[in-house]
């Protein structure tokens, strides 16, 4: 038996009311709100967040492979899964692969992981999927899309949802696409793409899966399918004999939006969060054809605790105050750094120090116990030389020791940088910028945690590093 052994999710802290987008363009609102990645987030950082959520309580060294799926990878040529593997502190002999360019890449990665484990080439694979697609300004897609990520650990033991069947179909059609130099998603004529694209493929793949599995619509507790708009998933459900009100997983239109390649996986996380042992779930994705799976929930579902998941991330949020900020946070209009960056990184130094920069390791002196970040070869307390352990701190929590709200360093669209001295519970100090916060609410003693973010494009590559943020623990967000 192969299946999902753990899941996690990530929704950025910011939500934008669709009414604000509509008002800016003097058009109708699609109602509700969409998630918006912060200006220091991209699909890689969101995948790291979801991956990290799914790995809580697990031994990261047991992961044999990592897949990253998106339609918006930070690099056109360079592996994102490998970067995510490093940041998540996985072993160096993990199998890494990116699945891109299709709304089906999330489920493609899922299918590939299932097949790898089934074939015995890997014991456990971490599947991450994240997306942050841009709709043309004023388009429906601008309102419909959301930003987010999901992650699953696929394996053969302690399975919380066994994948019993999977099926795929291919249908060539130019309906939703971006050319190689496009930023915004293009869509074809509405009736054509809906009927001959999404509706046709969903009908075919789900019918084929039911036939293959010998199951009928009423056997399922949940039908998990993304929707290109607010309603079409409902039409699919009805047409195939499902009870849309009771069986169809809410498509997250009202509070997140469609998260592209990550969306089917995110919806599956939502379904698993309320699933009971024995439940049957049908998951399908769409994009130039379709993938579909049958999952059976096991008794182990009760063990997937301690994760923020989709629910926890939905509960903690901040409101993005304007459409203009959305435009700027997503680089549709160009912000400038409050003061130019004057120190440029080097590829070699960034590579050399990746244990601290990417993996967030601290040195701990074997003689006196002093902990320091970044890793120090000579202990600043007792001067022991090259006598230290290296310990990962990326999932530790702590508090603000001291801080300032710096008005000079920030971007034009986000002008205040909260420079923070972050002290972890064991007294280790980190000097980090704080993100996802309301600067006016920060005070000494404020609880914070690490988050991996994209800082800037120094030396012409994406410079990622850690920041801190108010602890995101569901319900009450102190940001």
């Amino acid at each position, binding site marked *: 038996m192969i299946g999902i052994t753990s899941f996690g999710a990530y929704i950025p802290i910011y939500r934008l009311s669709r009414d604000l987008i509509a008002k800016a363009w003097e058009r109708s609102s699609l109602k509700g709100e969409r998630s918006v990645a912060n200006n220091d987030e991209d699909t890689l950082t969101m995948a790291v967040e979801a991956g990290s959520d799914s790995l809580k309580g697990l031994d990261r060294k047991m992961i044999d492979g990592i897949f990253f799926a998106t339609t918006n990878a930070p690099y056109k040529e360079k592996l994102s899964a490998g970067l995510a593997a490093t940041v998540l502190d996985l072993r160096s002999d993990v199998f890494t692969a990116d699945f891109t360019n299709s709304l089906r890449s999330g489920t493609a990665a899922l299918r590939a992981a299932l097949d790898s484990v089934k074939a015995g080439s890997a014991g456990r694979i971490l599947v991450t999927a994240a997306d942050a697609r841009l709709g043309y300004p004023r388009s429906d897609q601008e309102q419909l899309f959301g930003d987010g990520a999901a992650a699953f650990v696929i394996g053969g033991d302690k399975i919380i949802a066994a994948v019993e069947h999977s099926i795929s179909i291919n249908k060539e059609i130019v309906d939703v696409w971006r050319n190689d130099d496009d930023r915004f998603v293009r869509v074809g004529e509405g009736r054509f793409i809906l009927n001959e694209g999404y509706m046709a493929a969903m009908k075919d793949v789900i019918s084929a899966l039911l036939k293959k599995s010998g199951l009928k619509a009423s056997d399922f507790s949940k039908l998990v399918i993304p929707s290109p708009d607010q309603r079409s998933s409902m039409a699919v459900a009805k047409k195939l004999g499902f009870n849309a009100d009771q069986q169809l997983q809410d498509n997250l239109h009202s509070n997140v939006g469609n998260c592209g390649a990550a969306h089917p996986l995110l919806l599956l996380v939502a379904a698993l969060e309320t699933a009971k042992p024995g439940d049957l779930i049908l998951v399908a994705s769409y994009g130039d054809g379709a993938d579909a799976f049958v999952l059976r929930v096991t008794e182990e579902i009760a063990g997937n605790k301690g994760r923020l998941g989709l629910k926890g991330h939905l509960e903690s949020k901040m409101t993005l105050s304007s459409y203009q900020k959305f435009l700027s946070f997503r680089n549709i209009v160009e912000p400038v750094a409050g003061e130019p960056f004057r120190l440029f*990184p080097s590829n070699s130094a960034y590579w050399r120090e990746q244990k601290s920069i990417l993996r967030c390791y601290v040195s701990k002196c074997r003689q006196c116990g002093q902990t*320091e970040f970044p890793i120090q070869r000579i202990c600043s307390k007792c001067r022991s030389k090259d006598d230290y352990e290296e310990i990962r701190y990326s999932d530790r929590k702590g508090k603000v020791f001291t801080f300032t709200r710096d*008005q000079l360093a920030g971007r034009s669209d986000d002008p205040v940088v909260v420079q923070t001295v972050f002290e972890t519970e064991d007294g280790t100090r980190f000097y980090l910028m704080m993100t996802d916060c309301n600067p006016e609410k920060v005070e000494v003693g404020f609880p914070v945690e690490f988050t991996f973010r994209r800082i800037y494009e120094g030396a012409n590559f994406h410079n990622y590093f850690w920041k801190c943020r108010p602890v995101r623990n569901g319900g009450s967000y102190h940001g």
Partner: protein
Amino acid sequence: MGSIKDKVAIIGMGCSVFGERWSLGAGDLAIESAYEAFKDAGVGPEDIEACYVGQMYAPVNGIGGSTIADSLKLSNIPIIRNENWCTAGHMALIEAALAVASGAYDVVMAIGVEKLKDTGYAGLGTGRGMNPVYEARRTAPGSFGLIATSYFKQYGLSMEEGKKTIGKIAVKNHRNGSMCPKAHFRNTVTLDQVLSAPIIAYPLGLFDCCGNSDGSACAIVTRADTAKKFRDDPIYIKGFGISMDAVLPHTRPGFGWTSFEALKRSSGKAYEMAGIKNPREEIDIAEVHDCFSITELAIYEDFGFSPRGGAKEDIDSGFFELEGGLPVNTDGGLKCFGHPVGASGLRMTYEVYKQLQYKADKPERQIKNVHRGLSHTFGGPPQLSAVAVFGNERG
């Protein structure tokens, strides 16, 4: 550790006008301070045997000793530049003094120059952390704001009390600077103005931060035993202390952010060499590193001018005012001169030198009964401090 107490004397000093000197380059600023120093010492460029330069920014301000060699035409002598952050001017002076004390040279120039206005910086030290990854967005006000937040918290000052306390330092320095013809900012400010100014890096407001200026200052030093051949009133170097602390305070476990080892060590070493037991009583004038008002407050305590946690009481009582028990930053400090990094240590020393000679540019700001003066710069995250103590008589 040895001592150079009373072995080296300053026989001439010069200081440019500080400010936005758009029409002058780094070399022109150097000429302005060096030629005042030549005249003051009664020597010429041909008498200089070696030159130590404090200059932070390269390459916009020249590389190596080129700014000085090219402008002053100090050809074919050793010219050694240091870029030791904000202490670069002091480093140049101390290196020059050590060179003379070693016996290698008799007449040596120390010069600091910085043409900040060619670097495009709108404010002091913005956007120049020391590591492109770990400190990508570090700024000087941000670094020092951390001290204020922590100090107010640890000493139980409300934000209002804390802001008022450091605000009084800004008011004092502006009052002093208003009387100083070479200062960049020569306006007085009220406490209300200080408190209502825009925030730069909370809790520091505009008037808690020093300006961004061009400037240069220069000293010519020689052996103390022959100094009176040059002038009747040479100023003697009594002691110095330099401390470069290891590990950024940002990442040091347990660090309190209210007191700095580099400040304590550098002042302690300088006092020891100078034979000073009670700095609060024995120092008559001090020019200290007021890059931010909170920095000056931390210095009061780390230098032993005020007891630990007692700076507020001394500030409130006017102890550091021009007429107080220990006048600090009598020329207006960095607050009014701005901080052309490499020049500041020598500019501060220029003020102490003139005060010790009873030759302050305006009689109304001349300190009475002045025997011991101190100048000091503090740089980095902060991590590096340099102190020099001077006297107007030997022994």
